[in-house]
Structure formats: C-alpha cells, structure tokens
C-alpha cells in the first residue's frame, strides 16, 4: 500500500532579515548574519525551504553582573568587566553575533547615561567584527534617551535594536529609521499584541520586513510549553499568509534559563540534582533546543557548553527531513 503524502504546503515564507553591514554596505562588520527565510515549520524541510540557519548571540552586559552564578562567571572571568573583551570571548565560544544588553542603564541599577551607553556600543563594535544586537533596560523613559544615542553611535552598522512595545515605540522606531537599524518588537506572550506592535511600527513608517519578533521567553519548567505554543501559533500564522507574523523570532534563552533555581543553585543547595557544571548548561541548552523546534531564529545565550550543545542540535535539526 502506498503511504499517502500528508505534507503541508505553505503560502508564504518567513521574512529574511539581515543584521550587520560590511564595509561595502556602509558598516564595519566582517560579515552579515541572515535570519528567517523559512518556508516550512521547523524540522519539516520536505515541505519547503528550511531557511537560514538559526543563530546564537552571546549575551553581553554593559556592567558586570552581580548575580550570575559561579558556573557562568568562571567562563568569562575578568572579561565581565569589559564589554568588548566579553563579546570577544563569546565569539570565541562559537556565537554568531553579540547581544549587548544595557542593563546598567536601568535607573535602579547603575543608571548609566545615554552617552556612557553609546560609548559601550562603540567599544563592542570595535572589539568584534560580528553584527550587534543592542537591547535597552526596559524602562520606557530611559530607553527613549539611551537607545537613540546608541542607534546614532552605531549608525550604518545595521544593528538589531530593541525593544519596542505596545506602549513605547515611537522614539525607537524613529531612531532606527534615521540610523538604518532593524527593530525588535516585543509582546507579552500574546499573538494579538505581537501583531499590534508590528502594526504600530508599520503605522510609524517602519517596514515589517525589518522587524524581528520577541514573543517573550520562558525557561524549561517555567512556562516553556506556553511560550512554545505561542511561537508555534505565530509561525503557522506567518507561513499561512499573515504578514504581521512573518517576522523571524528572537528568544532570550540565557537570561530565562539562568533564572531557574535548577540552573543556578549550588550543589550544596540542591543535592541530588547533579553537578552545577552539568545542570546549568543543560537547562539552558534544552530550553534553546525546544524553542528551536517552535520556530526560534535568534537565540541569546550565556554558557559555552549550552551554546555548543545547541549548535550541534541545529546541525542535526537542519538536516532532518531535507530531501
């Protein structure tokens, strides 16, 4: 008996978004990272184009983190005090690009100024030649001062800047338009709001093709399945023709995974769960691998072992079902 062909055919593809600009393109990057482009759901290359390979961005902060567990900090050492050096280390670990989080600009943290943040952006751009993601502290008033300064400092580099939300998007949209950057649109695990933020950006003159969606991330054991279904729904809608969900997706895996007590607790605190050096990276790696199957395109990560594990999974995954 012949096995019937049950493969789906998809109407549209996910947008391909290029991050970074080489010298020819007006920037200083050695290469450009392309994400998205899939014409099928992940792991179903027999139904369409698998698109660009999912990428890893190493998470770098503008200030040294004071609450990272030893299992993380030991891999970076003194580099944690120098964003440029930190970024370099991340690239050595295998990351494809750098995600600079401006945690230190948060008014409750170091409250660093827009000028200081812009200086850090320049320093990181100088230290590495991969494309850059710059992410604000999430306080609208502060981000609206800091991110335009960073956008201008990185003008021409075609960075990915974030994030805009339903309540705060005008300033950052204008800054990205002026300085030629891509944009992260953030929504709180809600398909409708994801679409709404994109409409708002579009209404402000931003091209939907220059947007990457951040649908919010949750770690293994901490809402992962919810995140998974939201990402999956969004991806299926995008492939089915919804222009407002045809954007590649960014997942903030490292930050979420390392908030889990299973990842960060010391061996003394959780005897029986296995050694921290194995537990933490596994937690991060498994979270990332899951979200890879839900349709993630950019994965912000922290631990070198987790990155390695994830990249191996991607290798395997990209081959699945291809004809």
């Amino acid at each position, binding site marked *: 008996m012949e096995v019937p062909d049950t493969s789906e055919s998809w109407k549209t593809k996910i947008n391909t978004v290029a991050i970074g600009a080489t010298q020819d393109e007006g920037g200083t990057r050695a290469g450009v990272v392309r994400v998205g482009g899939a014409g099928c759901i992940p792991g179903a290359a027999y139904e369409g184009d698998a698109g660009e390979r999912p990428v890893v961005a190493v998470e770098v902060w503008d200030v040294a983190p004071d609450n990272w567990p030893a299992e993380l900090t030991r891999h970076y050492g003194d580099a944690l005090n120098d964003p440029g050096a930190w970024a370099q280390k991340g690239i050595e670990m295998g990351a494809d690009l750098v995600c600079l989080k401006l945690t230190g600009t948060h008014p409750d943290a170091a409250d660093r100024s827009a000028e200081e943040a812009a200086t850090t952006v320049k320093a990181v751009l100088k230290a590495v030649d991969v494309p850059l993601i710059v992410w604000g502290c999430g306080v609208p008033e502060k981000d609206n001062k800091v991110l335009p300064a960073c956008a201008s400092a990185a003008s021409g580099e075609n960075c990915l800047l974030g994030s805009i939300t339903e309540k705060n998007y005008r300033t950052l949209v204008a800054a990205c338009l002026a300085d030629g950057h891509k944009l992260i649109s953030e929504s709180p695990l809600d398909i*409708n709001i994801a*679409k709404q933020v994109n409409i*708002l950006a579009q209404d402000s003159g931003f091209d939907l093709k220059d947007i990457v969606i951040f649908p919010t991330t949750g770690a293994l054991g901490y809402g992962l399945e919810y995140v998974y279904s939201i990402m999956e729904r969004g991806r299926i809608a995008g492939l089915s023709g919804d222009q407002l969900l045809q954007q590649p997706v960014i997942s903030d895996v490292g930050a979420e995974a390392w908030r889990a007590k299973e990842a960060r607790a010391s061996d003394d605190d959780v005897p029986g769960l296995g050694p921290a050096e194995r537990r933490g990276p596994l937690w991060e790696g498994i979270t990332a691998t899951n979200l890879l199957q839900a349709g993630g395109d950019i994965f912000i990560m922290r631990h070198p072992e987790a990155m390695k594990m994830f990249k191996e999974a991607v290798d395997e995954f990209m081959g699945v079902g291809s004809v």
Partner: protein
Amino acid sequence: MNDDAKSKKHTGADKPATVNILFSPDGVGVEVPRGTSILAAARKAGVFINSLCGGDGVCGKCRVNVRLGRVRGRTSEFLTRDEIREGFVLACEANAESDLVVEIPETSRIIGEVREADPTAARFSADEHLPRSAEELRPLFRKHYIELTPPTLEDNTADLERLEFELGKVSGDTEFQMGLKVIRRLPETLRKANWKVTASTAYRGALTEITDVAPGNTARKNLGIAVDLGTTTVVAQLIDLVAGQTIGAAAKYSAQIPYGGDVVRRILYVAREPDGLAQFQELTANDVCMLVQELQDRYRLGIGDISAVVAAGNTTMMHLLLGLDPNEIRREPYVGVAYGPPPFRAAELGIKIDPRGLLYCMPCISSFVGADIVAGVLATGIHKRDKLSILIDIGTNGEIVIGNREWMMCASASAGPAFEGSESSCGMRATAGALDHIRLADCETLLSFSTVGDSDPTGICGSGYVDLLAELLRLGIIDRTGRINTDMDCSRVRVRKDNVPEFVVFGADETGHGKDIFLAQEDILNLLRAKAAIYAATLIMIKQLSLSFDEIDEIMVAGAFGNYLDIENAVLIGLLPDVAATKIRFVGNTSIAGARLACLSRQRYAEAHEIARSMTYCELSTDAKFMDEFVSASFFPHTDIERFPSVMAKLGR
C-alpha cells in the same frame, strides 16, 4: 469691595439677612433668608433634589455637596465620615449661614428630558412597531366607561355579575377576577353613580382583573409608564394608553451607582449587608418613583392617572426591583429567582401610581440576559423576520442577539458603561449640552460639532465619543492602541501632572459649565475595551453559528447614544463590523421601546414571553476564545485589519 460688604466681613455679629445659593450643575441661583435649609432653597429655585421624607431628615436621600460657603445643622447618621469630610450634608438638615455653592450629586437628580433617539428611530418605532389595529392596541391596563341597566324585579342579576356582563360586552374579555374590597364597595359605587361607572381592568394572562370601579366616566385618562431599568441609567416614558402615544420621557442615573458600577458588585453588597436587599429594592423603586413624579409634575397629572408600569432591565435589576434575592445569579449554576414574574400591585413595591395599578415586568431569559434584550427583540421585530438580523444593545453590558423567526441566540459581554457616558472624565448621557457629533479639520481646528438641544457643551455622550475617537484616529492624534501622541505639535494635547495625556475638545470659556471638556487617556482605553468586548462577542457568536457578517441582512444598534450615531465612524473604530453602511441601522433605546409596546398591547406582552422562551443563550465566559478575540479587538479598528477593508482604505493603508 464697598464699605458695606467690608463691615459684613469684619463683624461676625452683623451677618447678612439673606444669602445667595447657587446650585450646580444646574447653574441656578436663589436668594433666601439666612438660615434657610438647602432643600427649601432648592424648592424655591425650582431645582429638584430627591427627598422622600419631605425634609424630616429621616430618609437620607437629599444628600448634596456644599462646595463653597458655611452651613449649620446637626450631623446625620446617613453620611459616612468620608462624605462629611468631602462636604456632603443632607439638604433638609443644612441651613445656609453664608452664600453657598451647592452641588447636587448625579444620583439625587433628574438628568433632563430624554429625546427620541433620532428621526430614524422615531419613525422606526412609530411606523413599524406601534400597534396599528384596534386589535393590537389593547393595553395591559384599560378603562371602560359603562352604563349599566339598573336592576329590576324582572332583571335581578347581582351587582358583580351585572358589571361583568356589561364589561364583557364592551371589552371583549370573558374571565374576570376581582378583589374582595372592590366587590364590597361595589353596591354603593354603582348606586351612587347612578349605574354609570368606569371599570379599570388589568391583563393577567387568561384572566382579566377588574382592579377598580369608579363613578362617572374617567376612561379617557389612562396613562402608563414604560421604564428601562438600566444598570447606569433609568429612563421612563409616559404613555397615553388611550391614544397609543408617548407623551414624554425622563431619565436619571441609577441611585445604585454608589454601591457599584456593575451588577456583580451590587449583588455582593446585597449579600453582605443586613437589609441590603430591602435597601436596594427601595433604591430601585425610588428611582422609578422619582421619574414618575417628574413626569406627573411636568404634565400636571394626578397620582391616580397612572395605572400601570411596565419595566424592562437586566435580570439583576429586575430582581432588585421586585426585592428578589439576586445572589444565585452570580453563583454556579447561575439561576435567578424568577424570569417571567406575574404582574404585582405597584404599591406593594413602593411605586407610587394609582394604588390599584399594576407593575408588569418584561420577562428575562437567563441570569445574564435580561428583560431589556427581550424588549429589544420585541421592538425591533427580529423574531418575525425571515432574514437574519443582529441586534447589538450597547449598555453597561453589551448584549447581542442573532436570529430570525426560526431561531434566536443571544450573548452578553461586559463592556462597561463608557459609551453611556459614565465613568469617563467628561462623559454624560445624551441630554442637553452633550456633545453628540464632532468633526476636526486638523488637530487644532474643529470643523463642526453639535450638542443635544444646541446648548453650550457640558460633556460628551456616546455618539460624541464614537466621533471623537474616529477623528483622533484619522488625524493620528491617537495611535491604534488608543494612546495619545504627545510628540505631536498640538495645543489641544496636554499632559496632566500625573503624566497622563488629555485631548482638550473645548476650553472652559467655550462650555456651558465653565470647565474644560476633554478626553483623557484612560477614557480612551475604557472606550477601547468596551468596543472590543462588544465586537469580540459578536464575532464569536457569528463564528459559533458558522456564519459570516455578509450573511446578515441587517445589523441594528441600540443603546443610549445621542440623537444619532455616525455608523461610518462606529465602523472606523471597530465597534461595528465592516459591512455596507446600508446594512447597519441605529435604533435607539429598544429596551424602553419594547416595554412601551408591551404596555400598549397585551398581544405584544404575550409575544415577549414567547421570545424569552425561544432564545438560546450562548455563554461567553466559558468560551476560551473570548479573551483571544477580545485582545485582538482591543485595537483600532482591529488587529486583523483584513476584517475592516473599508477602514484600511480610509486610514491610508
């Protein structure tokens, strides 16, 4: 300041003999002797303050807020410490010691005459649905003048049977019932009146009650009251049951509002407070009484002229009117005490009309779909049409009915009272001074506007809000989430101290009350949520029935908007689905229209019960998709812009 005034100010002993009292928001002033009570001053000024005890300080209903000036009087247990601190006093207990500015709170006043919704709506109810034939115009309460043949030795039928026989001939009714007291009085009445009497009859299903027999001919004066008992507003219409015409209308905000804006909070209050139910029954009946009183005064009627009240409202309000415990309405399995109660003696419920007059309740459908919707269906005639129609009633709850003569389905979505002009900074009902239409040329210039009664604007009503939102959206002053764009160079946009932006429609110098009229950010978000709830509920029903909006013949929009509703703008903001404008019709307050119909026609009253029985209720709160559709609709006009092709074109996309 002249010397005279100065000396008054300096010497406390030499107080002025008279004081001036200004009542707001009426803006009426009156000069009275010092020491006069505020209530007496109000009466002199012709300003209405609700007072049941007539000034004995025992009803606590006449609370007013002294904004400026000094009063003397004893403290009252009717006021809370907070109220006293805010300046509340009982108008009957507070005596003016100086010039005063007194504000009469919404719940203590009549908010003016309600106009017929719009010319279309007037025609709509008059042409299509008012009883036309004599057969149809058989009011619930009738009066028949009869001249009986006096008994003789040959014709020795008893008084009652003699009356019933004659009454049967003129009325067409056959089975009568009658109270013992009325029968006991009968021989005297008949004989004193020389056998010429007027018999009042009331419809009680298969039976007709002879409620009273009065000497002479009083049959020409037979009036009824139709009441729409809304969560936020109560509206009453005075109806001439003989001519089949509406004489006038009055409205007020519900006296229950201070106890909670929605019915669930009120149910909880009733459950919690000892005597809560009795208190609420009284509040509800008093609201009706106030409106009846207002109409009686306005049209110079006596209490005995009004024979019947027909009330429509949501299930909770109907329970509260009757003093039925509403507590089970909000608890699983959501069961009310009575959905189709029989008529009761109005006096029994504290409603002051003819002591023998009756209160009829329009029937409810379920705990969440009330008599107001049944009345709406009755008034719009959905239940008689072959083609499919939708009735969307926008009140504190948005209620939606879809169906035709074969089947009907209804749902309720809690939308909040934003479109009723309640709970918004400058919201008001569609009464004199309410902005009901507006066009903006750009963000600075008003192209045109109108207010109800062409008065100076004092607030914004539902249709004004619909217009405003559409205009602001069109001009990009608000974005599609409803947020005001403060980056715009626009002198009408201002930012409050607490960082909340507002759009100023009229400056204080342009308004009727000397205060700014504006749209605050939180008002917009309230309106956005209200429209989202209504649209989402409608869409879910359409989807559950596997229909599309294209298959609907007509969409009728009911509710307390102003004189009219700009349908195109209502579609632009996503309140109504994007279908051909000719398919949408604004039909005004159908709850009261239905109650009026029932009042005028027994046949229609019976039909209402038929409607209540045949309606299927669709529970949205258990529908997992509701929240999703709600969020999707919480955007102007909608997240799925493809659902609004005409709007997409207008917004330039």
